[in-house]
């Protein structure tokens, strides 16, 4: 499965698709990027006259790249089926703010994939290479 095919299998669309590119992916992890368009709706209110990317959105970017893309890759054997996914836990530390138009890279390392549950150690870096957030994310990834 190509990286583009993985993105096309993601169950998201605009304005809630937060994966631009998968840089590399294998059975142990994934690396991908996303650039925050300054016109994204939530910047109008978070915060008033002071747009900063909400932590919940950073978490979502980490989950979509780090967990869902990897989960689809790991379920590759069921090509014609669509994966059913559910986020089950997150524990993230937010270290630096992310502003509109910033491009972030998510690096995810598989902790385990057992009995349909995928758990990953995930970090997000900005273009300078600084870690902006880091933590663990888990979800159920099951082919229907």
């Amino acid at each position, binding site marked *: 499965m190509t990286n583009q095919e993985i993105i096309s299998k993601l169950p998201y669309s605009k304005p809630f698709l937060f994966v631009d590119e998968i840089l590399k992916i294998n059975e142990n992890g994934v690396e991908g990027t996303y650039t925050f368009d300054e016109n994204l709706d939530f910047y109008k209110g978070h915060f008033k006259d002071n747009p900063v990317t909400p932590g919940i959105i950073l978490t979502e970017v980490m989950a979509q790249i780090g967990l869902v893309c990897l989960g689809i890759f790991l379920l590759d054997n069921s090509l014609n089926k669509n994966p059913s996914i559910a986020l*089950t836990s997150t524990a993230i530390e937010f270290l630096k703010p992310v502003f509109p138009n910033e491009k972030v890279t998510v690096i995810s390392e598989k902790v385990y994939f*057992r*009995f349909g*549950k995928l758990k990953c150690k995930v970090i997000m870096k900005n273009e300078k290479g600084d870690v902006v957030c880091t933590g663990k994310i888990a*979800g*159920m990834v099951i082919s229907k």
Partner: protein
Amino acid sequence: MNKEQTIEELKNIVKPYIQNQEAFDSLTENTDFINDLKINSASLVDVILDIEEKYDIVIDNEAMERMLNVKAAMEIIETKLSEKN
């Protein structure tokens, strides 16, 4: 395998994942992980991985599906431990 001791060990393993303190406090071998302790299916995976680690055993899909209560967990642990020797 000492039954009381194993129940105590299992109690320590499930403790971080339970959502029903009352059922946990009165845990017996008939306690159901999902219906009584309100452990969800995602957390049950962690319970099983912790059991694997604690007893140094590997739990397969078939055993995983049966591991729904304390009694079944104890039986599976005992079986897997005896297969090891």
